[in-house]
């Protein structure tokens, strides 16, 4: 079988080939379509939804997070969705926040993403006004955040993050998860620094590292995420914040798409400045 626990991010070609051969033999010629999908190239990891991956023997997950959750407004900020209080920000990040605050006091926005259809990214997609859904599979937890129809994939099949040079830098990053008791610990790296904000007015960069400790309350109706975030380019030390969510049994997610040309018709659009 493939060795996903190797600290090396490049798997042995021989081991992969042997594993594929073994799987082909296992599934036999009647599974030609399945076999076709297993023609892995060098360094490729079995997909999270590959039958062979899903069928691998592994310990049952201690908690099933599958469900729909609404963000619970708590905390010290005006609407609870941000990660206040801020840690001590690096000078450039503080200057950016100051500029944004000054614009806002005059009724303007400065480089705001939402009204111009730029992605929120992690962690903000976890704390917006719309629900999040968790779909838990043996190999990954899929998180659907309604805001701009976001999808997060948290791989729990034992794979490591890709090697740094293989990481595409994105707004949601690359997430892997493991269990510590009944807590799912999610580790996310690989973020872009292009208009990516960790919290309102605070940029996140390529060094951003987000750890989320996700757990369910005893009644299984309250989801809790303890965020610990570091980004030495933008703030000093660990930025910690805990968010809670309430299970919703009578809610589903609707399509949510931000269309630039339509946003441009709205009154708020022209007050969002880029200089």
């Amino acid at each position, binding site marked *: 079988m493939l060795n996903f626990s190797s600290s090396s991010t490049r798997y042995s070609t021989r081991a992969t080939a042997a594993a594929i051969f073994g799987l082909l033999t296992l599934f036999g010629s009647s599974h030609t379509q399945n076999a076709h999908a297993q023609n892995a190239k060098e360094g490729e990891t079995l997909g999270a939804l590959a039958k062979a991956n899903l069928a691998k023997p592994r310990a049952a997950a201690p908690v099933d997070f599958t469900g729909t959750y609404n963000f619970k407004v708590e905390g010290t900020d005006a609407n609870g969705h941000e990660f206040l209080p801020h840690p001590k920000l690096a000078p450039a990040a503080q200057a950016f926040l100051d500029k944004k605050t000054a614009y806002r*006091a005059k009724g303007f*926005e400065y480089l705001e993403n939402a009204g111009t259809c730029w992605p929120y990214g992690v962690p903000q997609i976890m704390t917006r*006004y719309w629900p999040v859904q968790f779909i838990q599979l043996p190999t990954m937890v899929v998180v659907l955040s309604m805001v701009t129809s976001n999808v997060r994939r948290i791989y729990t099949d034992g794979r490591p993050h890709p090697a740094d040079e293989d990481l595409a830098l994105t707004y949601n990053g690359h997430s892997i998860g493991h269990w510590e008791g009944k807590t799912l610990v999610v580790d996310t790296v690989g973020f872009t620094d292009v208009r990516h904000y960790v919290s309102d007015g605070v940029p996140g960069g390529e060094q951003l590292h987000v750890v989320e400790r996700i757990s369910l309350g005893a009644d299984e109706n309250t989801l809790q995420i303890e965020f610990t975030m570091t980004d030495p380019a933008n703030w000093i030390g660990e930025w910690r914040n805990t968010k809670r969510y309430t299970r919703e049994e009578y809610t589903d997610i609707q399509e949510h798409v931000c269309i630039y040309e339509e946003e441009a*018709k709205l*009154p708020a659009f*022209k007050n969002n400045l880029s200089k």
Partner: protein
Amino acid sequence: MGNRRHAGVGTGYARRTRLFACLSAAMLLNCGAAAWAHHSFAMFDLQKPVEVKGTVKEFRFGNPHSWIILSVKDKAGKVMDYPIETNGSFYLAKRQGWKRDSLKFGDVIVARVHPMRDGSPGGDLIAATLSDGRKLIARVEAPPVPSGEKK
């Protein structure tokens, strides 16, 4: 979704200012949270709601925003577009009972909005009243706060 044909000219442009109830940060939470969700609210004047009468030219029922383009007359009688944004269909339907056809092309409405702070046409919808008296609520408006009392 909605009807995007051009409508006839609106029936006038009424603008009156009322004392607005949201005085404290805690109250703003109730008033503004929904629209805040997608983008900042900094450009809207939360203290001075106004009422705008016009004819529905476009209505979009969707997420992240629903929105209305009203045809209104300015003080000089010139017809202009008055864009109004409001909550996404998700919350309008779930919490306020709106339907996809709650507003139709040609409907004459009075829209109560938080106007743009810079005075340009446009605002954030609080509620719309149709000519038959039906009232479509977009957000729960906070009850008046007795003077001198702040939470």
